[in-house]
């Protein structure tokens, strides 16, 4: 059995405009989502995340490339695996004139799921009491919950969630986050597309970052956080002397802002920093390693990509090498 639940190779999606122009939304994307856990799928607006998800779910046709889900080719074998996939794509889309329960019942009947599963799903997402109200009267958060309830009807092995916490209040976001984490721990593979990078970092075990339809980085979250330069925050009585000493030893130093006594030093070896400062007779008040977060990794990668010198600029730069 393959360790990958989702695998794409050279996946490409082109849109032709009415004027005959060609826009490439997804550019030869190689995506690999490992079995189990929560996999973040990150990228700025218009980077091709939703288009990729829509191709995986058979809602859009790929222009080129290969896709597999659970080892089955997509879209030809999608009917064989769709019962194992729950998905929320973009905003929740239900019939506005039907109640939440009616919408779920229609979907459940289509796949032969008993009515009791609808009750369970409604209860799981906390819509009990409002499930008989019309969908159009729901708040955005309630619509999101209903969409998640729909995915739970199938008891899926793979959950694809595109911005699932949109419109939710902080308590709702926490509930969804806990649900996602819980599903991941129970062996359900979750592909989570989100802009809220702190959320992703908290729940995801691995992630893929794309920009302009191209793969920018992919791997375990810890690996991604280790990419790029690390830094330490150094507090001393004489920042100017410390800056001079560290600069002389070849460290990149960010000078303190007005009124600050701390300087930022690019280094993944704090012991080296203390040694240089000690040899210069400068004694530390505090030294704090600056932990990179997913947001900074994401911004570095996507900004570099936007400027046209992203990590995939080189023709030989493979995705794993980029991570």
């Amino acid at each position, binding site marked *: 059995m393959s360790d990958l639940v989702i695998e794409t190779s050279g996946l490409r999606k082109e849109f032709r405009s009415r004027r005959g122009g060609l826009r490439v939304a997804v550019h030869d994307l190689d995506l690999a989502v490992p079995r189990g856990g929560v996999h973040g799928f990150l990228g700025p607006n218009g980077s091709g995340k939703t288009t990729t998800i829509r191709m995986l779910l058979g809602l859009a046709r790929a222009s080129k490339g290969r896709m597999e889900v659970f080892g089955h080719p997509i879209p030809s074998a999608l009917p064989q695996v769709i019962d194992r996939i729950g998905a929320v794509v973009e905003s929740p889309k239900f019939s506005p004139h039907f109640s939440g329960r009616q919408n779920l019942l*229609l979907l459940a009947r*289509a796949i032969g799921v008993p009515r009791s599963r609808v009750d369970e799903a409604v209860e799981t997402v906390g819509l009990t009491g409002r499930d008989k109200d019309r969908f159009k009267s729901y708040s955005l958060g309630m619509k999101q919950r209903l969409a998640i309830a729909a995915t739970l009807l199938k008891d899926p092995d793979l959950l694809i969630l595109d911005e699932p916490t949109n419109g939710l209040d902080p308590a709702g976001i926490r509930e969804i986050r806990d649900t996602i984490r819980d599903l991941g721990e129970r062996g359900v593979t979750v592909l989570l597309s989100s802009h809220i990078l702190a959320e992703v970092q908290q729940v995801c075990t691995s992630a893929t970052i794309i920009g302009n339809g191209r793969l920018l980085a992919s791997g375990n979250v810890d690996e991604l956080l280790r990419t790029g330069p690390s830094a330490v925050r150094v507090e001393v009585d004489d920042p100017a002397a410390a800056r001079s000493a560290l600069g002389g030893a070849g460290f990149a130093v960010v000078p303190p802002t007005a009124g600050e006594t701390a300087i930022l030093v690019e280094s993944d070896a704090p012991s080296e920093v203390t040694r240089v400062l000690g040899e210069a007779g400068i004694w530390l008040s505090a030294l704090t390693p600056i932990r990179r977060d997913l947001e900074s990794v994401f911004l570095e990668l996507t900004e570099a990509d936007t400027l046209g010198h992203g990590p995939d600029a080189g023709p030989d730069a493979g995705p794993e090498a980029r991570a």
Partner: protein
Amino acid sequence: MRSLLRVELTRLRWRRAILLLLVAVVAVPVVFGVAVALETVPPTASDRATAARQAEQEAEQPYVEDELANCQDSPQDYGVGDASDLEAACEEMIVPRPEWYLATQELDLVQQRDDTGLAVAAFISVLLLLAGATFAGHDWSSGSMSNQLLFETRRLRVWTAKALAVVLVSGLLSLVVLSGYWVALWSLARSRDLPSSNAILVDCLQDGARGALVAALAAFGGYALTMLFRSTVATVGVLLAVAVAGGALIAVLGIDAKYQPQTNLSAVVLDDATYNVEVPDECFMQAEPPEGLDCDEEKVLPARDGSIYLGSLVVLAGAASVLSFRRRDVP
């Protein structure tokens, strides 16, 4: 497939806009039936006596004698050129009769087949076309189509289940409603001791069945076009444009009237339809039309030809709709 069909039937039943249209489908023949019943209320003895007196007085007017003479001199001008008994034919055509002076006319089922029967079938067809278009349009306008396809990815099955639901509901409802209409009129004629043989009822019911077929095809057409255009408004707009511009184009280009949709609709519902064609000027230059020249201005379009015409349109719309739905991305 059965579960999908049941889902689509439920979806259809739960849509209020469609329910309203289906209620209108039931209401239209009721309104027509009541109007026919009121317009054909049998006249009282006093009404008949008054009408007979008026007809007698009118028959004594000098112009009647003049007209009778003219008719016998130029029977072609009065449309009785082929009559074997010219005098009787002219009298029937010109001499006033009491029924001309009655405010209500007798209920004539044969006449109703051409008049209200066709109108009711046409109204029902338009309403069911809108129902089919609304049913499909709602899936697209709400965006719920993509959600449905996340549960059943085989698009042909989804398309077919929806089409079956539309055709089943519209076909059955229109069959019941049109049959009810004719049975009601037939019963009314029978209660008034008017001609109402079983043969007439069978003819009327056959009209009803053909009308139901047309209505079901119209509903299917509305559904198929909306699945193609992905918008109810676009479907209605295109159909209006085709109805107006298409009819005008056929008239302007001098294309035979048998290609008008309404002529073919009449042919299918009524078993055949007559339409007029332009004949060469030579037809009018001599008393007798030249040999070998077709000077018959009135032609008959058989139901078979009308069925082929309407069927081809429906098959075209259905094929384009399926192809589009299977291939195009779903928003």
